[in-house]
């Protein structure tokens, strides 16, 4: 396939710069701020650490890279890892494309590669890896196991390089936890992985009180290795990203904003370990005046579109004052509604149908480009949503014209098994120019076992996002970093023949039929009452025994009476019923004159 050839080219590109450079490690911090056409503000932090560690043994001596990250490379055969913790939804139609895309909730994907690696080994390593990062990031990634992981065949492409000439087996694993809620407890450990203290440098801007008040925030972590040959002369790239979208209307003050207003404080210098610390400001939207003005401007031409960026080099700043940039609505500009063209491709997903019997999951992908686009569509449906692929339909709705049905070019489908593995669907097809494709299939609502419901069962169950990948021929709205580079600044002037784009849909909430959970409680109450009422009589009937007691067999002497009383009490206290009964039986058979009495044990 064309795609595969491209990947090989990219890997060649990746390996080439390594050469015979000596061991080094460098750290870069970048901040990119872009007011969107809808009036929102997108801020993107990227902290990149690049370490040429050479041989595997050197992984024990870490410098800038956090030790747990290096150790995962020693423990597992992981070569590339992406983790995203996201709150909110990236809205492509108004925000454009993000630098790093991420699904709502938690999302993990990893590539494993080693000689003699089997799929079973990878499954084992995958859950262990997820558990490790669950601890590192304080997220519920430990819930990732075989029941919610899939092995995408077409959707993702590797960005690592083993450099091995032998064909090393490669495995990919992908899982989402759409229910995961991202909070301060994730932000703090995420910040601790940075080489500088979070009180200094760009990380000081990430105050949880402000980060979590945004319309969208996504913490990302990416790790990859690039080796010249197998496990020797390797580079480890570790990138942490934080992507946020602010709504200036919620910040107060008629649409003006500043670093201080966005993050709660100004910037207090740069990280001393950083090789570069730069703020890039998008200047395409001319309706703002910047104070202070950028140190220099740079223009980026990429895929037919031109953007201007203002650059602030924080390392060139001096003084102890907190650095602040303010965006003020320019007065000469009339408040006009900017008609920015929508991005070439976006998608939405929803559930159709009503009632608790049958439903339909529909994904709607819209192509606003004037050429057909090749699409890889991936669905990861949890096991508790039995889906019927014979009902799969791809309907094209041209923006003007009659709708018609198409067939996917390639379909990769692994049916799910209840409580064992999810449904995994990948479709390859071409979306015609200026049209919408509706992908729909039916599913059933099922009852779960009652312990499988979460505590808030009536909230509904989450379905993770679908992923759509494509190769865009133009670079409009596109800001992702090219595969062979690692810094945000590398995306400037990075014209390629095509642009690899990943977009994600909404996650869905599905109200499964829920039993009345108060019913077991009622049953327990009733059953307990019945048991309690019945227990007494049944117990007494079952344990009481008709025995014949000697009435006039008492000793006549005073001494004898006393002795007998004492003896009896002792027996009673011991509570050994069988012995007692035996004794009584002896008595019963031994004595002629007897008297019937009932005795309790």
């Amino acid at each position, binding site marked *: 396939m064309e795609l595969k050839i491209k990947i090989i080219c990219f890997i060649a590109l990746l390996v080439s710069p390594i050469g015979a450079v000596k061991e080094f490690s460098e750290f870069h911090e970048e901040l990119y701020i872009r007011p969107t056409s809808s009036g929102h503000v997108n801020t993107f932090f990227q902290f990149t650490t690049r370490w040429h560690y050479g041989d595997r043994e050197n992984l024990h001596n870490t410098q800038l890279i956090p030790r747990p990250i290096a150790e995962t490379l020693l423990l597992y055969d992981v070569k590339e890892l992406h983790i995203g913790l996201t709150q909110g939804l990236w809205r492509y139609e108004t925000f454009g494309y993000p630098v790093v895309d991420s699904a709502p909730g938690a999302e993990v994907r990893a590539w494993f590669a080693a000689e003699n690696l089997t799929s079973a080994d990878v499954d084992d390593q995958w859950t262990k890896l997820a558990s490790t990062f669950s601890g590192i990031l304080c997220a519920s990634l430990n819930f990732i196991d075989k029941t919610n992981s899939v092995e995408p065949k077409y959707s993702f492409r590797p960005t690592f390089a083993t450099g091995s000439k032998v064909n090393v087996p490669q495995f990919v694993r992908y899982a989402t936890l759409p229910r995961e809620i991202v909070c301060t407890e994730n932000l703090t450990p995420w910040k601790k992985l940075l080489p500088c203290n979070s009180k200094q440098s760009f990380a000081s801007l990430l105050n949880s009180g402000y980060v979590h008040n*945004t319309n969208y925030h996504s913490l990302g972590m990416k790790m990859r290795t690039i080796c010249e040959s197998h496990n020797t002369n390797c580079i480890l790239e570790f990138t942490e990203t934080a992507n946020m979208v602010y709504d200036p209307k919620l910040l107060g003050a008629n649409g003006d904003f500043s670093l201080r207003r966005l993050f709660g404080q100004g910037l207090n210098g740069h990280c001393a370990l950083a090789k570069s610390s730069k703020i890039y400001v998008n200047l395409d939207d001319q309706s703002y005046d910047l104070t202070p003005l950028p140190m220099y401007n740079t223009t980026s031409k990429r895929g037919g579109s031109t953007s201007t960026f203002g650059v602030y080099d924080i390392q060139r700043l001096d003084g102890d004052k907190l650095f602040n940039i303010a965006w003020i609505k320019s007065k000469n500009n009339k408040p006009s509604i900017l008609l920015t063209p929508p991005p070439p491709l976006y998608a939405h997903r929803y559930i159709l149908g009503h009632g608790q019997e049958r439903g339909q999951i529909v994904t709607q992908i819209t192509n606003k480009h004037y050429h057909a686009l090749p699409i890889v569509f991936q669905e990861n449906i949890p096991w508790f949503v039995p889906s019927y692929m014979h009902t799969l339909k791809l309907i094209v709705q041209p923006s003007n014209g009659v709708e018609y049905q198409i067939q996917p070019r390639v379909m990769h489908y692994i049916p799910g098994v209840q409580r064992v593995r999810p449904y995994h669907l990948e479709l390859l097809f071409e979306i015609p120019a200026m049209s919408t494709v509706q992908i729909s299939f039916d599913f059933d609502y099922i009852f779960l076992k009652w312990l499988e419901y979460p505590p808030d069962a009536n909230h509904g169950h989450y379905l993770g996002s679908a992923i759509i990948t494509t190769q865009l021929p133009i670079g409009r709205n596109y800001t992702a970093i090219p595969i062979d580079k690692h810094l945000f600044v590398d995306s400037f002037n990075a014209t390629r023949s095509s642009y690899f784009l990943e977009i994600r849909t909404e996650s869905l909430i599905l109200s499964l039929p829920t039993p009345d959970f108060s019913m077991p409680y009622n049953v327990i109450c009733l059953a307990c009452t019945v048991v309690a009422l019945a227990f007494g009589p049944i117990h007494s009937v079952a344990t009481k025994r008709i025995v014949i007691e000697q009435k006039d067999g008492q000793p006549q002497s005073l001494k004898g009476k006393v002795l007998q009383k004492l003896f009896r009490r002792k027996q009673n206290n011991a509570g050994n019923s069988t012995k007692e009964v035996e004794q009584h039986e002896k008595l019963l058979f031994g004595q002629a004159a007897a008297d019937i009495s009932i005795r309790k044990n």
Partner: protein
Amino acid sequence: MGLLSDPSLTPRGKFGRTLAKHSGKISLFFYIAGLAWFVCLSHPEFSHGTYLSENALSPGLVDPEIGQDSLRLAQSLYEELQRERTEHKSTTPHAWIAAKMHQIGLETHVHNFTLRYPFSAGKEYHGKNVYGILRAPRVSSTEGVVYAAPYRAVNSVHVDITASVPILLAFADFARKKNYWAKDLVFLVTEQEQLGMHAWLEAYHEGGIRDSPILRCGNLPARAGALQAALNLEVQDLDIDYIDVKIEGLNGQLPNLDMFNLVQRLTSRSSLSSGYKHSPRKKRRSHRGSLEDNLRHMLEMLKIQATGVPNGNHGLFHRYRIESLTLEAVKRTTNTNNNNRYGSGLSLLKTIEGISRSLNNLLERFHQSYFFYILVQNDRFVSIGDYMPCLIALASPMFIKAFLLWLTTTATTDETVSEDDSVPSHDEEKPPIQLPYISVVLFMVSALLLGFLCNTLPFSQHVRDYFTSMGVSTEMSVGLILGVQVLLGTLLPLFYTLPEHGLELLHIGVLIFMGVTLIVTGLLNFALGFILAVIISPLTILLNNEHSKGFRQNLTRLYTFLLNPIVIIYLLILWLTLFEFPELSFAELGMRALKASLDAITFGLMDSIIYGNWLYTAIAAIYFPLWILLWTLSLGRQNLITQLEKKTN
């Protein structure tokens, strides 16, 4: 059948014989007991006070933040809208509403729908709904809450509710500036009454994929996840006297009681007079909480529920399991409080804010409180466990009587045999009683077939097209189809002669059929089941196997004739017309009522085609065949024939 053939239960036993003799009295007793139970429910001893089950709602936990500026915005928008209305006499000012929503900062979309009137071919109605979504910053559009306001054009025959849109927009403007939303807020302005709302909901939940050829809703350009609740506003003016909360939905469905309680709590908190079936201030004082007032409240609720027609746009949400109700803010007519004009408008805004905050807190769908209840007062209700016994009491004599009839039918032959032989030991050699099961079942099936035809013919496109091509009006064609069916049904007992014992067996079958039908109807829509049981049950008492002649039989025949669905509808409408136009002569009244009842049937049919109201289906498919069977019984033709045969023999 072991129970039925148990020898101890034959009327030879003293008990069984006595019971069979008094089956009419037993039925009467149960009938009166059922009605008495219902009346008792209006007593405070039998109803419960309302309470909030869902703790997450915590109404009034936050102080209202909405202030005078929002009310001022509403006022200025109201004035603007009034100016717009002078230019749009019969349409909705879509552009103005969409522009305002856009200005507020909502993601604004327009939804188009088309109704193809199913009868007169070619007639099309186009409609447009405008909606804006406020994307909640805290969540990835997985859940949403709808705030809707119907728009009525100037030339609408209904009450003017123009102020709903400004109130909705003012609230949207307030909500836009807050960052605590955890569910997307959908602000929806619909037109053409319930049709617009129905089309929007269909488009939201069916996505145009399962579009019927009659109502084409298409798809929505944007959604807000799973809708959790909806609030419909019908505001007559910014100066409000009181709020009437409307809850009855399609097919008698009700919103969760928590939702109703929430509204009650919050309106009382913002010192607005509000309630269920609320009345203006003057009437309010006169009677409050009395027994007959409670009973009237309950009966009014049942009356609306029984028709299955929602009394507001909220009623269409219930089918999709979205809890919703309508706040009808009624305009102040008395000028008592002139210096604090619009003060009540602010209270309304505060109430809406409070409701929205509570709904925003909701972690799970409404599931805690009651879904089946009858409101006795604003703060008292009767739960399903308490009101169901009265329906059971009304339906149970049918089963009891059926059983007793079974005993006597099987025994009559027994007795004749034993009288002849006078030797009890011969009993065991008796041939089993031959009851004409097949012919009776065939008769019942043919009656049901007529009901089926009633249900399919008016729905069929071909039949409709045929009548349109013949130039017959819709109402006439529907009337014609149904009239023929009813005539066939009335004449059916004359065509079909039941063999010996057929009538008795039919009687048993009809009683069981009737009882089951009433209970099933009552489970689906209590009000409908109850009202039908009240009017049908007396027949159980009246119909008697021993054919008493004269007055009683004539009464039974008359009553059965009056029970015919078409006759009931006609009489009901005649009654209403009599009140509406007392000046008309009787002949004119009759004609007018005839026309009106044809209209009513057509509307019922329309409701069933467009909205999915099953009242028509239930009446045509179940109750009409039941009527045919009852009619057969009341005529009692078979006996005449057998008597004649006996005479000739």
